[in-house]
Structures are given as structure tokens and as C-alpha cells.
């Protein structure tokens, strides 16, 4: 009889293959993630600490709170709209969210006349400041993988922030160079053990100079490249070593200079980036060479792209007064947070949020389990892009956007839905052209 048949066993764990990782900006899309129902995730295909940590953070959904009291979502949305309608100097920041979330957050910011910025735009801006001043020559990850014969890593090993950089983009043999060859030089920084392992079959040179003087080393390299007789030591690196590296750069067929500006410790780190960009440009007088500025945690690159196409200007922009006003100094969120009376903080990728001043009204959209120093006026738990819902995120190189799929259903709304609902609940205005 049918009723006596055993229930088919539920496959445990559920295995998700070819999962896109949206967290560090490398855009790895080959992850195998196991799901122990109902909602525990574990990355099995890589030791990447970022992927392992981030995918494993899946606490159960919790209800929104208004002034610390649990309420239904609709009530929290109304409460958020009420406090935002009264804001005089609002800041919409954090912006750790996917493309749809960015669209919704920026639309809300436009309605509010807010300042917009991403939590992690400091590293990005060390690069953008130079792009806006001088421009640059840059490349993308697949070009690095298939064409680069000399990779010059400037400063601290970027693998600390982007763990699979060398495994996925440097260790494979270049497909579009004849004969295929590759070597890696570290300038003012040393490779991590994992990097040495990943590069075990590739010649590695380490020039461990002063990490606060990367720019000086880049300038010395550029000078030696232009005129070998002008070679000098810099940043604690001997002149002879600079000369050898300059000559190697001159003879490279396709050199790439990579850096993670977020890891630069020196003050005015944009000036370090400017020197590196100058080195790349100078090298192109002799050969092909391109920069690879690495950034991109929590889709900061994608959010900056959306902001740029939406308003014509990038992040760190004020939307007060009806015309976007871009000022990377004034409107950096940490600076503007000092004067903002109301903060909308969106952090879909991580449960860490900053502490805001007492007296500031905070509306926080973040994963369940987020711990606040001070209870925000409104807290709405939201899903994580690429875990709870499909999401488009940009890779570090700014060119490739990937679509991550949703893996589990914790019953959490996505950030875009909540932000749109808050905007809808605001007093209505005539559409502006």
C-alpha cells in the first residue's frame, strides 16, 4: 500500500556546485558549498578563509526591531520612513549590498538628499583619486592569467585580503604568450606562506623594502627604467636590486603591477598609488605593462559603478540640493558621520557595523545576529546576497559582473526590497526629471 512506503530520504547534505563567492572581489565562481538543512553552509572546495568564514555565517532569521522592540517588517519600514522623513542631514552609507540593493539605496538617498558612501571605500579612493587626477593603464584578471610574464606585487601581499589571487590568476600557465613563462617579484612586501605554496613552480623574487616607502621604490624603478645610469637604491632596497628589476621590467613582454591599496599603511597612500601608476605608464614606453589595483570587498566596486552611472559621479557624493555634488574629502562617510543627524547603514554582507555618535538616529539593515553598541532606532535584518537571494556583484577589476544565486531560504527579505519599501513609505513627491 502506498501509505506504507518509506519516505524518500532527504539528501544530506545538499551540495551546491559552481557557487559564486561575492565577498572579496576576486569573483571566484567555482565553489562547492554544502548545505546542512535547514540553513548551515560549509565551503568544501577551497581553504579560502574569506569564503569559509562568510558562507558559514547563517544564523536564523530574527524579527526587525524598533527601539529594541521586535515588530513586523511593515511596522519597521513605517518607522524607518518616519525617522527619515524628519532627517536634516542624512547619511546613507555602508552600502555593502548587491547591484539591486545599491540602486534602491541610492534612490532612497536621492529622495532624502543624503550623502552616499561605502563602508570600505577608503582603499578604493586611494586608487580613484589617482584615476581622477592622471588616469592610468590597467588590466583585468584574465589578462593577468593568460598574458602576464612578469608580475610585480607592490606592498603587502594582496593575498591577505584576496586569498585565491595567486592560485587562480597567477599559478596557471599563460595561454596567450609564446613561450609561456612567468615570474613574480615582491616589492616592499613579502609573500605569505600560502602564496609561496601557490607559486611553488614559478620563480619568485622578494625585495623586502620599507612598506611605508613603496612609492619611493616605484619612482626609483621608473628612473632606472628610463635611464639605467640614474639607478639608485630606495626604500631600503639596494641600487643593484633596483637595476636588475628595472631591466627585467624593460624586457618583459607583458608586465603587471598589482597592489591592494587598502593594505598600504603610509599616510596619503594615494601618492603611493600615483607613483605606481607612473611606473606603469613609463614602462609602456619600452614594453607593455598594466596596473591591477585590487579592491572590492562587499561589492564596493559594484556600488561605485552604480553610483557613477546613476549620478554621473562616484561615491562620496552629496545629493542634497537636487544636484549631485562629488567631493571625496568632505563626503567620506567617516568624516560626514560627524555631522549627520540620521544614518541609514546598509551592510548585507557582514554583521559588523560601526558605532555611531549618541544622539544620531540610525536605521540599520544588516544580517541577523548583528551586534550593536547602541541599539539603532530601527533594525531590519536582511539576507546576504549570494546566500539568501540571487545577486549581481562586480569583480575587483571593475569589468566583470557576476550573478550569484541564492542558496538557502531563511525567510529574510533582500536589502533592495526593504529599501524600496522605505522609499515608498516616505511622503510622496512628484517625479523629477
Amino acid at each position, binding site marked *: 500500500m502506498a501509505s506504507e512506503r518509506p519516505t524518500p530520504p532527504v539528501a544530506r547534505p545538499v551540495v551546491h556546485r*559552481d557557487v*559564486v563567492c561575492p565577498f572579496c572581489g576576486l*569573483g571566484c*565562481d*567555482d565553489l562547492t558549498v554544502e548545505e546542512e538543512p535547514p540553513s548551515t553552509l560549509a565551503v568544501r572546495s577551497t581553504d579560502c578563509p574569506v569564503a569559509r568564514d562568510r558562507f558559514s555565517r547563517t544564523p536564523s532569521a530574527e524579527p526587525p526591531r524598533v527601539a529594541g522592540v521586535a515588530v513586523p517588517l511593515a511596522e519597521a519600514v513605517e518607522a524607518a520612513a518616519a525617522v527619515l522623513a524628519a532627517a536634516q542631514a542624512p547619511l546613507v552609507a555602508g552600502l555593502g549590498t548587491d*547591484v539591486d540593493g545599491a*540602486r534602491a539605496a541610492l534612490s532612497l538617498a536621492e529622495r532624502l538628499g543624503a550623502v552616499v558612501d561605502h563602508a570600505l571605500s577608503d582603499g578604493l579612493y586611494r586608487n*580613484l583619486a589617482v*584615476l*581622477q*587626477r*592622471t*588616469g*592610468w*593603464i*590597467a*588590466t*583585468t*584578471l*584574465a*589578462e593577468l*592569467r*593568460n*598574458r602576464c610574464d612578469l608580475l610585480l606585487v607592490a606592498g603587502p601581499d594582496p593575498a591577505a585580503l584576496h586569498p585565491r589571487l595567486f592560485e*587562480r*590568476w597567477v599559478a*596557471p600557465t599563460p*595561454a*596567450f*604568450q609564446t613561450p609561456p613563462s612567468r615570474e613574480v617579484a615582491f616589492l616592499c612586501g613579502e609573500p605569505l606562506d600560502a602564496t609561496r605554496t601557490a607559486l611553488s613552480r614559478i620563480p619568485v623574487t622578494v625585495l623586502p623594502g620599507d612598506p611605508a616607502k613603496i612609492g619611493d621604490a616605484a619612482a626609483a624603478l621608473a628612473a632606472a627604467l628610463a635611464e639605467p645610469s640614474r639607478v639608485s637604491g630606495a626604500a631600503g632596497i639596494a641600487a643593484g636590486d633596483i637595476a636588475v628589476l628595472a631591466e627585467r621590467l624593460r624586457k618583459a*613582454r*607583458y608586465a603587471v603591477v598589482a597592489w591592494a591599496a587598502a593594505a598600504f599603511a603610509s599616510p596619503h597612500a594615494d601618492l603611493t598609488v600615483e607613483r605606481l601608476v607612473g611606473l606603469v605608464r613609463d614602462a609602456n614606453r619600452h*614594453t*607593455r605593462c*598594466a596596473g591591477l589595483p585590487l579592491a572590492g570587498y562587499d561589492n564596493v566596486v559594484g556600488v561605485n*559603478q*552604480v553610483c*557613477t*552611472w*546613476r*549620478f*554621473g*559621479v*562616484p561615491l562620496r557624493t552629496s545629493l542634497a540640493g*537636487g*544636484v*549631485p*555634488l*562629488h567631493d571625496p574629502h568632505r563626503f567620506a562617510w567617516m568624516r560626514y558621520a560627524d555631522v549627520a543627524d540620521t544614518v541609514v547603514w546598509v551592510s548585507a554582507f557582514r554583521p559588523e557595523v560601526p558605532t555611531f555618535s549618541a544622539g544620531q538616529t540610525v536605521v540599520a539593515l544588516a544580517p541577523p545576529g548583528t551586534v550593536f553598541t547602541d541599539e539603532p532606532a530601527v533594525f531590519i535584518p536582511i539576507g546576504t546576497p549570494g546566500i539568501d537571494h540571487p545577486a*549581481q556583484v*562586480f569583480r575587483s577589476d*571593475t*569589468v*566583470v*559582473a*557576476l*550573478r550569484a544565486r541564492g542558496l538557502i531560504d531563511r525567510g529574510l527579505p533582500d536589502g533592495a526590497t526593504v529599501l524600496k519599501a522605505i522609499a515608498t513609505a516616505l511622503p510622496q513627491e512628484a*517625479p*523629477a*526629471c
Partner: protein
Amino acid sequence: MLTKLAGGRIYDPANGRDGAVGDLFVRDGRIVADPGPSSAPDEVHDLTGRVVMAGAIDIHSHIAGGKVNIARLLMAEEHRAAAEGPCGCVGLATPSTHATGCRYAQMGYTAAFEPAMLPSNARHAHLEMADIPLIDTGGYLVLGNDDLLLELLASGAGEEAVADYVGFMLNATRSLAVKAVNPGGINAFKYNQRRLDVDENGPFHAITPRRILTALAGAVQRLGIPHPLHLHGFNLGVPGNVEATLDSIAAVDGLRLHLTHVQFHAYGMEGDRKFSSAAARVAEAVNRRPNISVDVGQIMFGQTVTASADTMAQMNNAGLAHPKKWVMMDIECDAGCGVVPFRYRDKAFVNALQWAIGLELFLLIEDPWRIFLTTDHPNGAPFTSYPELIRLLMDRDHRLARMAELHPALPEHTILGSLTREYSLGEIATMTRAAPARILGLTDRGHLGPRAVADITVYTDRPDRRAMFEKPDLVFKDGRLIVCDGVVVAVLQGRTHVVEPAYDPKIESWMARRFDERMGQRLTHFRIAEEEIRGGTGLIRHACQPGVF
């Protein structure tokens, strides 16, 4: 709901109407036949004395994607300078998505197409296009420097395999057409070659530009894609490049070919300055060959920013950057991008002659169905300069007056002064509506016959054609009024036009292997899902007809 547009002078070249007075009826977003006297319209617009055309269509305008955003980043000061508009829309050469939609709609345009969508950047371009309000969009996929295609060609693959590759790529990236930018040249630049002759093997794949060009033109025909191969030719901006342009026309041997921004490819080397107009030679070739179409890429004077996939050409121009900053990128083994700000000066001889060459092409190419009004926005000028360009085409006195203000040596180097042609309203309607729709395969756009989408623009007939085309009285999108007396009155969302040619899916296993091995990306993630285009409601598919197109 039935809307009647009563008594306008209708310019609808696709249906043979050239200014005859008549009525139009719109129901459910489409034009319908006259329903007869018994049906009462819900809304009537009295258009007596007004000029009525279909919504205009721009076939070549860089409106979205990575290079456009780089241009915006690079030109942030432009936004500060231009932030005094009536509604907060900012940017001239690098408008925001919102401003792009508004400005086009305010000029009576209802569609514009991004002509250089890199495969690796297609998802970005679509995400960005979805944020352009009011107008329809679509993208042309850049091929011809992608290592996988060059590898395929170098392996001796036949036409069928090349067509399968192209067919897959168009489907995967949700594209409308195929674009080739300096075929082979961008790839060669990555090997530090600063030029590549049409019959010279590339440095790695041992394939000539001519072979790439003919393979792509052939694949487009084999797949039956409505729009011919959209070619950004060789040696852009280089004196003497007319030879390569004429050679490209000859190379495709009767296949259909669209030469884009041909103004930048119509230069001779005559005279003291070794820079001369070759517009007459290009025009003669186009006039003689019905398989060839062009858009002009007219330059207009002032500050702009050039944005192109052609890194080989852009690197050569980087020294001319104004202001002095520029960006080059090598991109994902499929192409590149170069962004170089530029200021065209009316007192500079070269810029003045470029301006004249563009106008010569417009006036010497006889068939308005095969020449299109573009500035290659923002390369030659922002698209907002179209009304002035239309006036230059329609008003010889204005043309001559403007010419007299330019570099004094110009008259001896151009035949522009002797050209008496003035475009008619019907020819303008052809060039900006009927012909773009036809050459893109948009069968229900660009005309005002029954079943056409009700994208309609109404103008007051002013002798000052710039004033007329700058500010239409009424613009309808899908039958809804979106612009009234130059003011946007409703913000609608457009659609995305694509083709989905049939191909043999066996190519996918070859590609999947290469994506895994080389691109560090799964092919399945490269493919853009239907639900990603405007939230799943945005696609308009156009038929491919192998053997017809």
C-alpha cells in the same frame, strides 16, 4: 484607450508619407488603423500644422558600460560645470543614465543603442542600460579581438564553427548585433604592436585583420542577423586611412557591411599638411555599393571625451588629451578600452577639416537609407548636439556662415562651400527613424503604420531647424505622453532589443573548456539570464533570417 493625433503633417518614409496631412490613432501602445467615425477617441491632440514623425532612433551612441563609467570618473569636473540644468540632470559628454534618458526623450528620441559592448562587460552594460529611463536600448557585441575567436580562426575552423561561436556569444550576452573594432589591432596592442596592417598576421594567433573581418561579416550573414557587421575600421584618425576604409569595403566582397563613424576613417594625405578630405572617395564607394551603409560620427566643437575599445588608436591619441589625463585598459582577453578627453577647437585646422569631412559625407552620400546621423557620442560630440547638426544639413546658409567662422585655411581644403544640397524633412525622418529601424531589424519601430509601436514625436515646423529639433512639442513612448513642450512629464522604462540566432550547441563544450582553463569563469556564469534583463520583463526579440539578411 484610443488616442487620436489629428491633422498633423506626417513624415513616415517607411510607408511613403512625405508631409501629407492625416490622422494617427493609438490604442494599447500601438498605432492602429482609423477605427472609423463610430468610435470615439478617449483623447484627441489637435496637431494642425505640426510635423509628426516616429520616435527617433540612434544607432551608435556610447551610453552604457565600463568605458562610459570610466569617462564619467575621469570627467567629474564636467559634472560640476554642467550642474545647472533645470532638473538636476548633469553631464554633457558623460551624462548620468537618468540624464541620458531625459535628454534623448526631450529631443524626440525613443531608442539608442550602445555600439561597443564587450563580452566580459555585457552584464554591466545591461545593468546600466536598465537604469536609462524613457528610451529603448540594446548593445552590439564587440568581437574580432577576442582570443577565443582568433584561436578558433587560427585553428582553421570553417565558417560554420565561426558562426556557431558568434551565435552563442550573441545569445549569451543578450546582444542585438555584432561589432568589430579594429579587428586584430586591439589584440596586437597587447603584444606591444602599435600598428597592424590589414594583411599582416597578428603577433600571436597568426591571423590577418582581413581574415577576421571577412569571417565576422560572413558569420553575421550566415546567422541571418538583421544588422550587418558594424565595423569600426582600421587606423582610426590616421591621415591616409581612406585606403584601409576602401579596402574594407572591397574585402567583404559584396557582403553587407556597416562602417561606423566613417568621418574618422575618410582621411587623405594630400596638401602641405599631409591631411586632407577623402570624403568624396568614400561617398563614391558607398553610392556605388548598396551593401554598404555608414554612420558619420560628426565632430562638433567643444569639450568632449573619446571612449573606444580601440586601444591601439587611443594610445596613439593619448598625447592629445585635454585635460591631460587618460585611461587605457586591456580587458579579459576579449578587447580593451581607451578613454581620452578631447577638446575640438574651431580655430584648429585639423578639427575644422574633420568637421567639414563629416558634413561632406552627409551631403555626398545620396541615399538617406544608408547614412545615419551620429556623433559617435561622446567621441565626436555629445548627442545633444544633434539639433545643431540637423540644422547644418538642412540649411546651407547656416552651414556657410558657420564655415566662415572656422580656421581660415579651411575653404581651400574642402568642397563643402560648393555643396548645395539641403536635407528635407522627409530625408531627416528617413535618416533618423525609418532607416535605423530597418537596418537594425526593428520591424515595428521607426514608422507610423498600423501595428507599429506608438513611439511618436510632434514638432512645430520652425525655420530654425535647430530650435525645431531641440524641443519637440510632444513625445509619445509606447503610446504614452512622456515629453510635453520639452518637459519630461512621465518617467517610463524602455525595453532591451536583442537577437537570438540559432547555432549548433556543440560549440558550447569547446567554449566551456576554454572558459574553465583560461577565463577563470564558468561558462554558465558568463551567460546572462533572461531574468537579469530589466527584471525579466525587458527583452524584445527580433527575428534572424538566414538567407534573407
